[in-house]
C-alpha cells in the first residue's frame, strides 16, 4: 500500500469503489422509485397493446412532435450531437476498448484516433454550449439547481482530462491517466445521485408514458 501510486489507486480500489457505488446506487434509486407501485388501471382501455405503445413511446420520444419542432430545435440538435459524440469517444477509442475487454472479456473494433479526437472536441464544445445556455436562458437558469451544474462538471472533466492524456499535455502521462480515471470515478459515484440517472430512467419513463397514453388511444 505504501508504494501505491495515484494511478494504482485509480485503477484499483478507486475504480472498484466507484463501480460499487454506481451499481448499487442505480439499482437502489430505480427499484426504489418503481416499487412505490401504482394501482392497476381499472378503466376500460381503448387499445390493449400496451407493450407496443410503451415501446413505441421509447422510440418516438427521441424526436419532437411536429408542432414543437421549431421551438426546440437547439435542444434537439445539441442533444443528439452531444450524445453521439460522447458515445463514440467512450466506446470506440482503442485504449477504452482494451479496458472494457479486460472487464467484460470481449472487445470490438476501434475508430482512428483522429475521429476520436474530433468527437471529443465536439462533445466538449457542445457541453460548454449547453452550460452557457443553462446559465443564460431565462427558463433554464430559473429551473436549474446545483445538480444541473455538478452533472455537467463531472462529465466535462473526464472529457478534458481524457483529451489531455491523449495529447500527453500538461503533466506526465501516468499522472494525466490517473487524473482521467479518477474523474471518471467521480462521475460514476455522482451518477446515481444526480440527473445523470436519466440515462437509466429514460426507458421506464417513456415506456410508462406510452402505455398510459396508448390505453387511451393516444400516440405518446
Amino acid at each position, binding site marked *: 500500500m505504501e508504494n501505491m501510486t495515484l494511478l494504482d489507486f485509480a485503477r484499483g480500489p478507486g475504480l472498484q469503489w466507484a463501480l460499487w457505488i454506481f451499481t448499487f446506487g442505480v439499482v437502489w434509486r430505480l427499484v426504489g422509485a418503481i416499487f*412505490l407501485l401504482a*394501482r392497476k388501471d381499472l*378503466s376500460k382501455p381503448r387499445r390493449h397493446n400496451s407493450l407496443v405503445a410503451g415501446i413505441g*413511446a421509447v422510440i418516438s420520444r427521441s424526436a419532437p412532435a411536429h408542432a*414543437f419542432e421549431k421551438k426546440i430545435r437547439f435542444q434537439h440538435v445539441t442533444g443528439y450531437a452531444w450524445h453521439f459524440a460522447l458515445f463514440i469517444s467512450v466506446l470506440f477509442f482503442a485504449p477504452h476498448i482494451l479496458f472494457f475487454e479486460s472487464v467484460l472479456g470481449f472487445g470490438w473494433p476501434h475508430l482512428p484516433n483522429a475521429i476520436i479526437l474530433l468527437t471529443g472536441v465536439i462533445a466538449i464544445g457542445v457541453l460548454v454550449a449547453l452550460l452557457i445556455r443553462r446559465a443564460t436562458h*431565462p427558463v433554464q437558469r430559473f429551473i436549474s439547481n446545483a445538480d444541473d451544474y455538478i452533472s455537467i462538471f463531472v462529465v466535462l472533466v473526464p472529457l478534458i482530462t481524457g483529451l489531455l492524456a491523449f495529447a500527453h499535455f500538461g503533466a506526465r502521462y501516468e499522472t494525466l491517466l490517473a487524473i482521467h480515471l479518477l474523474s471518471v470515478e467521480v462521475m460514476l459515484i455522482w451518477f446515481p445521485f444526480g*440527473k445523470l440517472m436519466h440515462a437509466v430512467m429514460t426507458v421506464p*419513463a417513456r415506456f410508462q408514458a*406510452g402505455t398510459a397514453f396508448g390505453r387511451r388511444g393516444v400516440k405518446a
Partner: protein
Amino acid sequence: MNTEPMSLQDFRGLLTNMCEGVSGRDLSDEDRVRRAKKAFAQKLNGHRAVDLDSCLHCGMCAEACHFYEATQDEKYAPVYKYRLLRRFYRREMSPMRWFYRPFTRDISGADLKEWQHLVYEACTGCGRCDMICPMGIKISAAIRVVRHGLAAAGYVPPEMRILRDEQRDQNTQFGVGAEKLKALVAEFSAQGIDVPLDRDQADVMLLTTAVEVLLFPDALAANARILNKAGADWTIRSDAFEAANVGIITGDDPTMDLAIKRIVDKAKACGVKTLLMPESGHAYQTMRWEAANEMGEPLTFDVVSMPEFISSAIAKGRLTLNKQSNGTSVTYHDPCRLSRKGGVTQQPRDVLAAMGLDVRETASTGRENYCCGGGCGEYVMCKGADLRQKAFEIKRRELDEAGADAVVTGCANCRMNLMIGADNSGWQMPITSLVETVAANLAD
C-alpha cells in the same frame, strides 16, 4: 320557471358576483403544510416517482405551455409548477431522501400560496407539456397532484370552492338542479322534442351540465334530437344529470368521488349499457378514465362521448346527415381532455366530413392542440382573467390562420371560453358546438 338561455354577459356577471366577498379558510400555515404533505404522500406512486426522478431540467416543456408562450415568464414553465411536489418527493419519499434532504428546502406556507397561482390560475391541465417532454414525463399529472395538495391545504380558489361545496352539499351547480332541468325538458316537449326524463330502465343514460342548461340549452336539445333520430333507448335522470365534476377540477377527491358515485349508482340502477357524455371535456375524462379507478372496480357500462356516439351511429347506418354543398369551412377545436387526454380525435372530424364540411386544421392540432385558455375550471376565476385572455390570443391566432368560416368544438367550457375571449377582443368568428351542427343537419 324561466327556461330562457342565459346570455353570455349575464353568465359573466354571475361569475363576477361569485368572486366578490369570499374569504379564505382560516388555517394555520403549519396545518396547511401538514395537509398538503399528506395529500402528496397519498397521491405519489411508482409512475409519479419515475417521472419525478427523470426530469432533466431541459425546460422544453415551457415551449409547449400557452401561459409561458403568452408571457415569456419563466415561472410558468410547467416543470416549475410541479417543483413543490418534487421537493416533497426528494425530502420525504425518494429512495435517495437521506442524501437529498439536507439540500432540499421544505415546503412552507408561503410556497403553498405561491403555487395556488401557478397551478390554478396559470395551468389549465391541458397536458400539452406532456407531449413535448423528451423523457415522457406526464407533467400535467404531477401538477394535478400539486392541486390535490393545495386543495387539502385549503387553497382551492374561493370561486371554485363555492362550486365544489355546492356540488358536494346540494348536488347542483350554479343553482341548476332537478327542477330547472324538468322545466327545460317541458319547454323542449312544447317544441316537439321528446326527452324521456327519469325512466327507470334504459340502454343509454345521457348526462348534461349546468353550463349547458343555463347557456347552451340548444346543445342538450340537439343531443335529444340525435338520440331520437338514431332510435336509441335512452333517458336523462333529473336526480343524476350533472356531468361536470368540480372535485376533479379542484383536486378535491371526496367531492370527485361523490359526484362520480351519484352517476355510477344511478346508471347501474337503470341497467344502463352506455353512459353518454355531453360536450364537456373534463366530464368525459372523469367518467371514461377516472371513475372506475375511483370506485375501485370496473364500470358495468361503457362511457361514450357524443362524437364517438354520432360517428358510430353514422357508420352503422342509424344516423344520416345532410351533406352541405356550399363549401362551408370549419375548424374543429380539440378539447384537451377529449382529444389529447381521451383519444377522441378522429371521430369529430369524421362527423364533420359526413356533413360535407371543409375541415381546416390549425397548425397545432389533435394531440398537439392549444387549449382554449380557460379549461380545468379556470373560467370561474376572476384573478386569472388577464392571463387567460393572453393564452386565448394564441388560440385565436391559430384559428384565424386556419381561415375557416366558423369554429366547432365538442366542449361547452371550451365554447364558453372561446366566446368570452372573442367577447373581450371583438373577435367575430362564429363559435358553435358539434352536436348543434349535427342536429341542424339531420336527414329526414
